């Protein structure tokens, strides 16, 4: 037998006494691990979205608020397609691509879907609703719509020559080079669910289309959509020349920031937002959640510490006779305090491990379900959670351990 086994036997003699301390430590660690992991994953997602979407700007109808770039056209409000003309005519600095979109509800094989009208790049330079622009665009560089932004390499969203025939390039560039009036692009999830493949004929909005390509999965709402030519969608849905959103792809962040002011001035009845602004809400939510997680953890640490200290003080008081007897048998004060601190380490470790398990589970379940992010738990969080749990337990048990070490050994002679 050793002092260690003795400590464990004492602890499990009446586990109910330590249960409160265990639970509070576990809850604290669960909160830390779950919230920290979700927030970190959410931050990574935001960073990845910003990286992926680049220096894009959205021109939206007035009064539209949105939190998801990929659903920017799913708000039901519209604005004149003529806004595209205005932007083109203005030849704003650093504009590389323009992508107007119109989304309308439709039916595909009895299933409700969204058909999004997009304008292929070639049409933009040829005949369109803004015929007067032809004269102006004819003199522009084929690689940009606005004038070139000085000191910038550009081409963050340009379709590479090799990708011009690849319709699936839309998934990354947000524009396609060419799209026939009777062609459809189908999102990956929808194609899989309905068993659609390239070359299939489909009836959408009462007209026959041929599937020109299946878009690769992006993990966004695009995966469940059907894309068709903007003017075909306008014609079939009888909406007239309107759009829900115009994506403006800037060559760089600096150019995008400059464009916001220019476009605001140009389109006073529209709302102009950058990617950063769209993601701002998510970033703010992340920050608030992170602060909240630290606050919750701090409160639980204090509560856990106080609870552990209280349990330990009660334990020392209850064991006065036993501890006095151990001293009479030759235990030194340091052995006695070590026994109490060992118990604290055990409470911190067991509570911490339970908290880790629950926290990891909560992160994996709650992350995708409530925040929409696939959560990963970092090893740093796991180590930090466990170390903090043990540290709090040990620090909270130090005063009771000290008290135990200074007990009067003559207590062993007093009758209970």
């Amino acid at each position, binding site marked *: *037998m050793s002092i260690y086994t003795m400590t464990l036997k004492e602890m499990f003699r009446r586990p109910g006494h330590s249960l409160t301390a265990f639970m509070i430590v576990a809850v604290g660690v669960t909160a830390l691990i779950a919230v920290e992991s979700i927030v970190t994953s959410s931050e990574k997602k935001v960073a990845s979205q910003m990286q992926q979407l680049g220096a894009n700007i959205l021109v939206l109808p007035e009064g539209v608020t949105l939190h998801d770039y990929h659903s920017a056209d799913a708000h039901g409000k519209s604005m004149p397609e003529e806004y595209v003309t205005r932007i083109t005519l203005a030849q704003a600095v650093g504009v590389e691509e323009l992508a107007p979109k119109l989304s309308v509800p439709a039916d595909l094989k009895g299933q409700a879907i969204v058909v999004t009208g997009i304008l292929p790049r070639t049409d933009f330079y040829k005949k369109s609703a803004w015929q007067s622009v032809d004269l102006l665009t004819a003199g522009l560089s084929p690689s940009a719509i606005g004038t070139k932004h000085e000191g910038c390499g550009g081409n963050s969203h340009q379709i590479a020559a090799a990708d011009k025939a690849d319709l699936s390039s839309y998934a990354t560039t947000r524009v396609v080079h060419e799209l026939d009036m009777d062609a459809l692009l189908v999102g990956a999830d929808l194609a899989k669910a309905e068993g659609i493949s390239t070359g299939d004929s489909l009836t959408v909005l009462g007209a026959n289309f041929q599937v020109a390509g299946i878009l690769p999965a992006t993990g966004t709402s695009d995966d469940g959509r059907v894309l068709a030519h903007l003017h075909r969608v306008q014609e079939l849905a009888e909406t007239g020349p309107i759009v829900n959103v115009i994506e403006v792809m800037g060559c760089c962040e600096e150019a995008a920031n400059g464009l916001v002011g220019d476009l605001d001035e140009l389109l006073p009845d529209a709302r102009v937002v950058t990617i950063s602004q769209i993601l701002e809400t998510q970033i703010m939510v992340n920050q608030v959640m992170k602060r909240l997680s630290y606050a919750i953890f701090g409160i639980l640490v204090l509560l856990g510490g106080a609870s552990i200290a209280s349990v330990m003080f009660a334990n020392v008081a209850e064991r006065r006779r036993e501890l006095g007897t151990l001293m009479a048998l030759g235990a030194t004060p340091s052995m006695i305090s070590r026994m109490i601190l060992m118990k604290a380490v055990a409470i911190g470790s067991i509570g911490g491990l339970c908290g880790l398990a629950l926290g990891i589970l909560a992160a994996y379940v709650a992350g995708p379900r409530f925040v929409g992010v696939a959560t990963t738990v970092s090893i740093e969080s796991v180590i930090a959670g466990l170390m903090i749990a043990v540290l709090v337990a040990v620090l909270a048990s130090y005063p009771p351990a000290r008290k135990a070490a200074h007990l009067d050994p003559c207590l062993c*002679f007093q009758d209970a």
Partner: protein
Amino acid sequence: MLEIKSICKDYTRGRRTVHALQPTSMNIGKGQFIAIVGPSGSGKSTLLSMIGGMLSPKSGQIVLNGHSLYELNIKQRSRLRNEQIGFLFQSFNLVPYLNALENVQLPMALYGTNRANQKKQATQLLEELGLGNRMDHKPCELSAGQQQRVAMARTLAMRPNLILADEPTGNLDPGSRDSIIQAFHRLCAEGQTIILVTHDTAVSQSADRVFQINEGTTREESPSEVSNAA
């Protein structure tokens, strides 16, 4: 073997000082069976605590086998207590969550004896005391007499030179009491010294020497006089 040189102890309660033990001296040899008698609150347990190195005297000195107890630091004194002094208590003071075997192993565990030796010696002691079939039992599963025998085995685990017993027969029936007294005599015959605090005249009359404490004052008496004095 044990020299007690003019030790005294005062307790302060508020402004009042209580003289728990007036200057007391004793010289106790190896293998002696000493009984300390006296009414409750007379200072018997105070004296036992000081001899056991757990309560420092106001003045005086206690020397055990050449070691002046209160000149040692706490760690040295704890070590000396572990190696040379065995305690036996009236209410046994067994650790409730350990079984009989583990309770007996306890002083050896504190000393640092390896587990195999701990178990071997503890088993041997319990078997000698007739508890070979009760080793896995917790104290609450044992009778008072059996608990006292486990406590006795724990006291003897480190083969101490000095055994300090505080009313060890107080909670026992006459049969158990007699077997404990016989065991004490055997131990004394083997060279162990026993100092025992008791109210029991039968026990004190069987001692080699008897010290009567009354209101903190100690006086040696002949064992045959004890019944009148106690």
